[in-house]
């Protein structure tokens, strides 16, 4: 029996295997940027559901408000004005937030056991009670999502409303969206829904419309339908081919096990040496001899 409402697939800084016999539904959120009107209902719903409050900030010259994600604002709308000869001026609005990677870089980089959990349904969740505030998750994230709170020095980000999904509800942002730009369901269904929409967009002249489900991080559980999928960077710098930073992969994938083996070998060697040879003591005979010599000198 599981002792939690969602099955765990991966746990930060933990080597024991999670239970894998059960197979639960893999979920996904699909954000269709071509349907988004940038109303920010999702931002408000996120704050309300998660009992968060954002301070009144300053205007950065665009509609971005707040201008960046914070420890309180786990999702923000990013407004990009893009000019091209082909299509003239376009206003590309993207709901930014955690992508819930299949292979999460934050989890890989995290040194605190159980601070980052990936559930079997695909949700990547932060558990602040286990967070040590080191900020490695920020370095490990290919999308620059986690934010460290100034209040408690712990990392926060979108939970995909794991508490709602655990009881069979959709995330708060999905429910609130008045244009139907955000959808939620099984990952398979979301891909089908995206295909239908992409066909529609292509018929309307967006010949490069496509799905953003980057393979570099094993696919994501938050996917975008982009009308210019050939250039994701147009959407306020969405990375074209996100991957976990090589330093994190190298350190956690190769260097860490090697170092662990080295430490274990040294400890084990020490133990065996102690048991077999005992401590390095001066024998009584030598001690007596030395004392005699000292007395003779006096």
């Amino acid at each position, binding site marked *: 029996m599981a002792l939690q*409402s969602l099955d765990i697939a991966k746990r930060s800084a933990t080597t024991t295997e999670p239970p894998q016999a059960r197979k639960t539904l893999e979920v996904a959120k699909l954000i269709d940027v071509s349907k988004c009107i940038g109303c920010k*209902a999702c931002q*408000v719903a996120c704050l*309300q559901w998660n009992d968060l409050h954002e301070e009144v900030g300053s205007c950065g010259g665009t509609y971005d408000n707040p201008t960046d994600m914070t420890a309180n604002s786990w999702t923000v709308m990013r407004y990009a004005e893009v000019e091209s000869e082909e299509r003239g001026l376009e206003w590309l609005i993207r709901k930014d937030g955690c992508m819930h990677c299949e292979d999460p870089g934050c989890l890989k980089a995290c040194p605190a056991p159980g601070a980052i959990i990936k559930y079997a349904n695909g949700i990547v969740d932060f558990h602040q009670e286990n967070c040590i505030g080191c900020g490695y998750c920020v370095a490990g994230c290919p999308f620059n999502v986690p934010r460290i709170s100034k209040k408690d020095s712990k990392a926060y980000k979108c939970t995909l409303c*794991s508490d709602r999904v655990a009881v069979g509800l959709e995330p708060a942002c999905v429910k609130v969206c008045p244009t139907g730009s955000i959808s939620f369901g099984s990952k398979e269904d979301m891909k089908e829904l995206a295909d239908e929409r992409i066909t529609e967009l292509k018929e309307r002249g967006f010949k490069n419309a496509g799905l953003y489900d980057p393979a570099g991080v094993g696919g994501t559980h938050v996917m975008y339908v982009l009308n210019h999928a050939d250039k994701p960077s147009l959407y306020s710098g969405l990375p074209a081919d996100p991957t976990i930073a090589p330093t994190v992969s190298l350190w956690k994938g190769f260097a860490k096990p090697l170092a662990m083996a080295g430490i274990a070998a040294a400890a084990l060697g020490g133990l065996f040496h102690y*048991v077999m040879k005992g401590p390095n003591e001066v024998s009584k005979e030598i001690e007596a001899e030395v004392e005699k010599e000292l007395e003779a000198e006096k």
Partner: protein
Amino acid sequence: MQLSRRQFFKVAAGGLTGSSLVAMGFSPTAALAEVRTFKLARTTETRNTCPYCSVGCGIIMYSLGDKAKNVHAEIIHIEGDPDHPVNRGSLCPKGAGLLDFVHSKNRLKYPEVREPGTKEWKRIGWDEAFTRIAKLMKEDRDANFVAKNADGVTVNRWLTTGFLAASASSNESGYITHKVVRSLGMLAFDNQARV
């Protein structure tokens, strides 16, 4: 490997200490990870209509407690009503933030009047407010009502007072508001019935 009597005791004592520490609770934490508990599990759900615009989205207000005698209900969360035909659970950013509107310090909860020449708002009773409004409306209508225009055609206009009635009201209240206001001759008028 050869163990002396002394070495055997050392190893046995080490093992005993370790297992005793675990038994006393100094063990590594179990590999658990529970999501935040669903905060609406036993709240009271009350259906209502969003008070902002004339779209009239359905909302559900979640309040603390089960309405037992000694419990003082307090709204802790508001969400769109998924069964409402108008919005089917969705809301705009203003509607999504209704909780802060409900708990706002600036929320108007009783009639107030600002007398001519003052800058202070004064709290008054409902009866006083209704009487005052009715009296002022009648005075204004008696003074400015236009029964016939310059050509002698009956127009029955009252142009000096406007009426702004509630949005998000039912067909019936829209109909009644319309009847009352239009039969007084008022033209500057807006309410739900426009939508």
